[in-house]
């Protein structure tokens, strides 16, 4: 039902009820001018709105009634019982029409000529006819037996949640349904209360909650007080009252959607697309305040879906989809939250375009991008100024978009996720709290101050320092916590808030493990107190710029306390910035920010620069050399050494090298490629170990992939490619014999470990191949279904889920990839394994890290297919 019409109906119902009462009063005291003008005003209002809404039948009746009342008011006609009954008859007629409107969305058929004639006669003072006429003439407009199916008017019809956008207002809910809801005119079940009253009520309840908390705190110190029982009761009643008042603020989310069908209709006309908007769960209720805040982001996203997401009918037909595109909104409750989905079945996010855009905008390097999962790349759309729309339309694509949406949603403590599949559509998932007014919070202390942390963001609490508790470790100055085999980046609240006027206590305290979006990090605090229900109050305008706080509140003991905003903290520390490499979610099953490898890898441990051990996969190192100091020469300020008849550039890992202070013998890690070589100068070579690598990329710095726990120690893993670029120049990997070069052949790489992807993908790209990397076999097979084409496949053997051999069998079974060359990558290359792999369908078998062998194998395989 039209919003406007629904409002009108509510209003008219109220007006009619008031009118009945006033008319009866008027009949008793015909001289009462105040009542008379009230009656006149009500009828006049009804008439005016009818005209505006184009309800001609109702308008005619109201108009005739108004004429009579006008004469009464002007005193040119005496008020008579007959006249009043006529007006009451007119009211009944209007009421019948309203009932018809409610049931059918349009004015019911009917003839009011008799009634109108009688009213006009009365207005002209022709009393005699008038008395006779009304009895016979007003036709029963419609059986009044069809009350509204709608419980409360100003929401879009819940029974018709599905609204086809281009279609105009849907006619009539089926009559059966109408009869199924007896006894409910619009006005009967709701009363209209001004929002201000509700807000005031909410504020009072908030204060009551605070006072209750205060009393409870006092009572806690006195064990057997006579007050404790009534206080308990007061406490319960307060909680119930709080809940009740909260309910009054709840509104169906449909209110925020009401304008969307129109918007989508306009969009479809403007863009020449066929769009159908489907809305589910419109009756899901949430706090008015949240609703207001979510309205604009939702509108923006639906507009985006229509504009960018859905294709035109031509394209859709070509893609084998129905011409009409679907946008689906769905809202539902889930554990104290509301989930809103906005899904379309359009073209999906174009990963390649996003990648290009991220590159050109300098948001990430090629190597970083290579290591990212699709999900991570998709999250780039939430970065400021990121719009991939090729053309800026009037509708969207001005580069202010998803980042604003994300910020707005985070502002109310919500999160947003995107799931997209190229060619199949995009789905956004928004998770927002039910209410902002009262939240449960953990009270903590840092420095000498107390703060409240909303519990919604708290994952767990860990005691650190002291006997038997977990220990804080440091990488350089950054504190980290090893928590169940993962490295948790930590921030010290006291330092973050610059509270360090008192010397920091020993490393004992608590770590609040916090999750913001997909990022998990820890906040170090000194003490943890109770949890308390707090009423979030906004901070004074002069403090709004301090983003670390989401508000302030008054605690049970009467003191004021600041409420921390985990989002703000994440932003301030850089933990939660979108899309920094390896930092965002990798997949659902694993801790979000870890680069993972299930296979053991031989790592070379060494020391350089600072005390933290460094590591590099041994397979990447060609040789270890010990160069005498006097052999090292300087050319253009850069150290070089004559090595096997060539000049080999040396790069100091510590960042500087000085002839004077250099040790007599310089350990060098030699990396080679074809006939080129470069050396990385380190301080000391420690060990070679076989380790399962879990790299935490959080808090990375250039030149390092991240840190990992190796031999029980926090170790930084160097980014070999980055160091090679330092002196070898950009063309290091690319400077190969022309024979070896690929010609843009498309390679699919299936490798679960992002770590290896970051190593192999740039190498292959540099060799001239166009590489698409996916994290598992299932994803690869989905690509096959989506019609992606490749010239060769490189796959890991040991992968979670479908392993490499099973994947090879699946490929060989049939489909477009059946005859592609497939190269297996494996940690071990035992003859039995190789035989096994060949049996499964692999063309060749290459040891991981053996870049040269991989490139050679690729070249041969591709040559073979060309020849064959």
């Amino acid at each position, binding site marked *: 039902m039209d919003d406007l019409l629904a409002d009108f109906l509510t209003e008219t119902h109220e007006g009619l009820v008031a009118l009945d009462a006033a008319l009866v009063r008027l009949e008793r005291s015909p001289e009462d001018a105040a009542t008379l003008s009230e009656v006149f005003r009500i009828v006049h209002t009804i008439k005016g709105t009818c005209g505006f809404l184009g309800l001609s039948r109702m308008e005619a009746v109201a108009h005739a009634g108004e004429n009579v009342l006008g004469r009464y008011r002007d005193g040119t006609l005496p008020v008579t019982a007959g006249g009043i009954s006529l007006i009451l008859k007119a009211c009944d007629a209007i009421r019948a029409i309203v009932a018809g409107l409610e049931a059918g969305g349009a004015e019911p058929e009917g003839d009011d000529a008799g009634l109108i004639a009688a009213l006009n006669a009365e207005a002209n003072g022709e009393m005699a006819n008038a008395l006779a006429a009304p009895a016979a003439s007003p036709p029963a407009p419609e059986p009044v037996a069809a009350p509204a199916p709608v419980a409360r008017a100003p929401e879009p019809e819940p029974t018709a949640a599905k609204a086809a956008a281009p279609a105009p207002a849907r006619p009539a809910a089926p009559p059966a349904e109408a009869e199924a809801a007896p006894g409910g005119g619009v006005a009967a079940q709701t009363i209209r209360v001004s929002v201000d009253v509700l807000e005031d009520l909410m504020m009072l309840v908030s*204060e009551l909650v*605070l*006072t209750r908390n205060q009393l409870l705190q006092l009572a806690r110190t006195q064990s057997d007080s006579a007050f404790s029982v009534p206080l308990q009761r007061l406490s319960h009643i307060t909680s119930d009252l709080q809940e009740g008042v909260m309910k009054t603020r709840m509104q169906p989310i449909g209110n925020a959607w009401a304008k969307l069908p129109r918007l989508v209709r306009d969009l479809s006309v403007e863009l020449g697309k066929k769009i159908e908007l489907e809305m589910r769960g419109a009756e899901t209720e949430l706090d008015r305040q949240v609703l207001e805040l979510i309205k604009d982001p939702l509108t923006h996203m639906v507009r985006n879906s229509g504009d960018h997401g859905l294709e035109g009918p031509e394209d859709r037909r070509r893609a084998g989809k129905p011409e009409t595109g679907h946008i689906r909104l769905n809202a539902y409750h889930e554990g104290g939250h509301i989930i809103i989905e906005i899904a379309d079945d359009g073209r999906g996010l174009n990963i390649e375009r996003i990648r290009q855009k991220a590159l050109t905008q300098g948001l990430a390097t090629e190597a970083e991008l290579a290591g990212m999962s699709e999900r991570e790349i998709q999250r780039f759309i939430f970065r400021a100024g990121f719009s991939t729309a090729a053309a800026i339309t009037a509708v969207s694509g001005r580069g202010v978009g998803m980042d604003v949406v994300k910020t707005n949603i985070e502002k109310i403590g919500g999160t947003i996720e995107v799931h997209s599949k190229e060619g199949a559509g995009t789905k956004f998932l928004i998770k927002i709290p039910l209410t902002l007014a009262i939240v449960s919070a953990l009270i903590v202390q840092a420095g000498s*101050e*107390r703060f409240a942390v909303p519990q919604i963001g708290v994952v767990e609490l860990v005691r650190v320092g002291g006997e038997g508790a977990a220990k804080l470790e440091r990488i350089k100055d950054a504190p980290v916590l090893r928590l169940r085999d993962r490295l948790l980046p930590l921030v010290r609240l006291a330092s973050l*808030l*610059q*509270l360090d006027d008192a010397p920091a206590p020993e490393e004992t305290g608590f770590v609040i493990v916090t999750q913001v979006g997909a990022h998990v990090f820890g906040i170090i605090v000194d003490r943890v107190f109770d949890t308390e229900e707090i009423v979030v*109050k906004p*901070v*004074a*305008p*002069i*403090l709004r*710029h*301090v983003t*670390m*706080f989401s508000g*302030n*509140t*008054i605690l049970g003991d*009467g*003191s*004021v*306390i*600041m409420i921390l905003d985990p989002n703000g903290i994440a932003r301030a520390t850089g933990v939660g910035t979108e899309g920094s490499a390896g930092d965002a979610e990798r997949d659902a099953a694993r801790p979000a920010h870890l680069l993972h490898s299930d296979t053991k890898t031989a790592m070379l441990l060494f020391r350089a620069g600072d005390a933290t051990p460094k590591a590099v996969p041994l397979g990447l190192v060609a040789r270890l050399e010990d160069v005498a100091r006097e052999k090292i020469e300087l050319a253009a300020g850069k150290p070089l050494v004559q090595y096997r008849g060539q000049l080999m550039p040396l790069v100091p890992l510590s960042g500087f090298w000085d002839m004077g202070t250099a040790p007599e013998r310089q350990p060098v890690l030699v990396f080679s490629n074809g006939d080129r070589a470069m050396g990385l100068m380190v301080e000391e070579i420690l060990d070679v170990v076989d380790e399962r690598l879990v790299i935490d990329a959080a808090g990375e710095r250039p030149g390092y992939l991240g840190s990992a726990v190796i031999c029980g120690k926090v170790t930084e893993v160097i980014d070999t490619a980055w160091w090679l670029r330092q002196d070898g120049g950009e063309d290091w990997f690319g400077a190969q014999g022309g024979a070896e070069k690929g010609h843009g052949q498309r390679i699919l790489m299936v490798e679960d470990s992002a770590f290896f992807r970051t190593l192999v993908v740039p190498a292959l790209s540099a060799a001239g191949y166009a590489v698409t990397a996916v994290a598992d076999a299932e994803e690869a097979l989905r690509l096959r279904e989506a019609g992606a084409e490749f010239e060769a496949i490189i796959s890991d053997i040991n992968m979670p889920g479908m392993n490499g051999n099973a994947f090879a069998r699946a490929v060989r079974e049939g489909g477009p990839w059946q005859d592609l060359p497939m190269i297996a990558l494996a940690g071990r290359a035992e003859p039995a394994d190789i035989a096994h792999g060949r049996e499964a369908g692999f063309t060749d078998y290459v040891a991981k890290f053996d870049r040269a062998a991989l490139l050679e194998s690729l070249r041969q395989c591709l040559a073979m297919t060309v020849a064959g």
Partner: protein
Amino acid sequence: MQQAMTGAAAESAKPSARGASPLGDAAAESYLTLTVADQLCGVPVLAVRDVLGAQTITRIPLAPPEVAGSLNLRGRIVTAIDLRRRLGLPARKPEEGQAMSVVVERDNELYSLLADQVGDVLPLPRADRAPNPPTLDPMWREVSVGVHRMGERLLILLDVERILAIG
């Protein structure tokens, strides 16, 4: 507890604030006097909502230096502005006792101006007011609307709006 009004100042501040209409124009030109590090200042009495004694003030990290913190006034959160800092005067030493709060309202938000002492409410007719001397410290010129001679001492009339224009 925070309602504990202290001294004659509170007594005199409240009634005259309330009795604005009978006093008429006199109230409009009445000022509450306060001392900030020995400097006599005045704020329009009609702007003052409350005068409070020493309060527990919660520090607000990362706030502008002029913001001393926030306090609880009968369930409402009041942001405290340290007038000494706002006027660039030396910080209060512990032996100088605790500051008093003069609570003012702006845009539905309560602010407390922290002063060392709060004095009487005085009628200060506009006619007797001298303009800011041109040599006045620019920081003061910013927040002062004029100067009154009070016997031996000079009283600076503070513009509450401008005092609160921080950050």
